[in-house]
């Protein structure tokens, strides 16, 4: 019997449908269905100038919007061949890592709430407010920032930004210890997560899974270290990878990534040089193509842009990490119980905005 979990369902964050075929309580087959939130962003981009697309790129994945507008600006700078000033790069990196922590905290809140600990939801959202406040001081809004520009960032950092970011990092590292005690100290949480939803390494690589689920299956590949962009070569951090491939490994990879992000924010904020924060980009895009790749909190984000000499791009193609990761859902779900669907799909951190574009 095929059961439809969704599209209107408290568990599915965002609007998508998961059809599963069950035999008693065990899952025999699974098929995700997306496309309920398709807004036609790629077609919209062909009618807007290069600068007008930045707010559109923010709304691709609203849970981690700075990553996408930064990705777009990187792509266009590759197309136009621009060299961004160093201060702008450092500001971008600090903001992106704060966004990464905020996105992972939102994932933690939703994951804990789905598993039954409402405590985790409230605590994670409370700590997310710290970083959202910092980003609000930086850019003016809380969720979709419209902050990077082609050639730099929109404006300089506010006063006392360095002091506040260092305080936030210290606070977050203490709280991460508390979260580890809350979740890993609970036998029930470990029972629900260990050995559930195992994805082997070869299968993960073949199916196109990227990001924390890939690193939790044993592949130590992080775009920030292996194909670095921006000023990441000058910053000192470690990509996290665990060999197990179950839900607990995915959880642990994200928790440790938050710790590494705190380290990166500290270095970026302290090493920030003085100088310009923006150069003016040319109005027309040259004829040619450009590629940008970033390590999004959810995986590998990529954009391919084709310019034709006019102020508007000819074609913009967006690769969303969750679009490909969710197609691997069948391999992760078959053989487990219906109650495990929450843990497994929650561990993938789905954001439907970027899946459906």
């Amino acid at each position: 019997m095929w059961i439809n979990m969704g599209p209107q369902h408290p568990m599915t964050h965002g609007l998508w449908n998961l059809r599963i075929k069950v035999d008693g309580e065990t899952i025999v087959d699974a098929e995700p269905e997306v496309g309920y939130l398709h807004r036609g962003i790629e077609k919209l981009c062909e009618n807007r100038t290069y600068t007008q697309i930045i707010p559109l790129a923010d709304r691709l994945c609203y849970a981690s919007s700075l990553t996408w507008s930064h990705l777009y600006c990187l792509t266009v700078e590759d197309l136009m061949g621009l060299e961004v000033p160093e201060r702008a790069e450092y500001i971008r990196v600090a903001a992106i890592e704060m966004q990464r922590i905020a996105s992972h905290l939102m994932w933690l809140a939703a994951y804990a709430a789905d598993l039954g600990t409402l405590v985790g939801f409230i605590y994670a959202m409370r700590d997310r407010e710290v970083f959202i406040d910092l980003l609000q001081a930086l850019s003016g809004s809380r969720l979709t920032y419209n902050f990077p520009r082609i050639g730099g960032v929109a404006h300089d950092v506010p006063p006392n930004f360095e002091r506040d970011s260092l305080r936030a990092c210290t606070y977050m590292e203490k709280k991460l210890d508390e979260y580890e005690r809350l979740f890993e100290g609970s036998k029930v949480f470990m029972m629900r997560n260990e050995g559930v939803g195992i994805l082997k390494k070869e299968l993960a690589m073949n199916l196109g899974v990227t990001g924390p689920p890939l690193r939790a299956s044993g592949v130590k590949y992080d775009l920030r270290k292996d194909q670095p962009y921006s000023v990441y070569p000058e910053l000192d951090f470690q990509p996290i990878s665990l060999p197990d491939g179950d839900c607990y490994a995915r959880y642990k990879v994200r928790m440790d990534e938050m710790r590494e992000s705190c380290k990166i924010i500290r270095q970026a904020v302290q090493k920030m040089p003085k100088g310009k924060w923006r150069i003016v980009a040319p109005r027309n895009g040259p004829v040619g193509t450009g590629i940008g790749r970033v390590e999004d909190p959810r995986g590998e984000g990529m954009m391919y842009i084709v310019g034709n000499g006019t102020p508007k791009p000819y074609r913009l193609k967006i690769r969303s990490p969750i679009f490909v990761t969710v197609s691997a859902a069948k391999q992760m779900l078959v053989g487990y119980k219906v109650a495990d669907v929450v843990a497994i799909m929650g561990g993938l951190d789905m954001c439907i905005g970027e899946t459906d574009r």
Partner: protein
Amino acid sequence: MNLFQFCYGLIHWLVILINHLWYWLGDVLPGALGEFFTDIGDLAASHGNIAVFAILLEVLIFVIIAFVNVLNFIWLDRKFMGRMFDFYGPYYVGYRIGGWLQNIADGMKLFVKEIMTPAKADKAGFLLAPVIFVGSSFLALSTIPLGSNFGVETSAHDTGVPGGALIAFAFFAIAPFSILVAGWSSNNKYTLIGGMRSAAQMMSYEIPLLLTVASVFLLAGSFSFNGIIDAQGDIWFAIPLFLGFIVFLVCLMAEVEVQPFDLPEAEAELVEGWTTEYSGMRFGLFMMTSYLRGYIGGALATALFLGGWHGPTLIPEPIWFLIKAYTVFVVIEWARWSLPRIRVDQILNLGWKRLMPLAVVNLLIAATFKTLGWF
């Protein structure tokens, strides 16, 4: 003075007052009509009649106490949860008394909501399930006495409902039947799954529960609540039967369906589980009964393990009983909001493979204590 004597006296006074009317009518009206009214007056003043009304009044008093306690429990639950989660609980409604009137506001909201019945639902089952659920819980509630003179009794010298604790547990255990009927008659795949899970869970946790209760009966030597509580005069049963107390609390949490055992109504998977199709005050009845069963569980734990109403004599006995019941409830709430939900096959695993052997060991300990003559 007994509660029964108090109610008897009250009803007796009321009946004498009304009998003035009947006897006057009997005197005034001629012939057979007059004799009719005199006979009514005699019937009203007979012992059996007054006793029946006295018992009804006792049950009414208990139900009112239960309602007030349930309101308190819900308020305490939400405040405690709020403080654990780093926010205030209910705050604005009833501002000066800490938000206690929030429950009344929620109740009024539920009353004015539209009550919908699904078109293809089985009408009889759908309408009967809340009735059975609430009714059996109130029946279980009314058998628990709150003090040595304050319980539903049937005569001036009797001590409680015949059968005592056994009847209370029997009524408590009717609930899984009504949950199954509610889940099935809603004509919804999800509620069916929720109802079946709930029935499986409750059935598998009844057995360790009743085994621990059996060990208490063994030590106390009687079934009735008064007998059990009197046997705890020297030492509360929680101390020799510590293992049983823990098992009892865990089984209670599974019976009342609080987290970590609330998979039947797990929001993340089944929307609201077996109560999905109920709206308005029908849903309110289910929610209220859930808390009522929490109260019953706390009261049972107090009566069986924590010495009932024994305590320093400055505080009246029912208040001491309620304080202990509230403490048990707070401990259950503490566990509730800290732990994640357990998966259904792990719940059944826990019930059958871990709790039942522990309950049997507890029974053996009780038997040892009894043969050694310490009780």
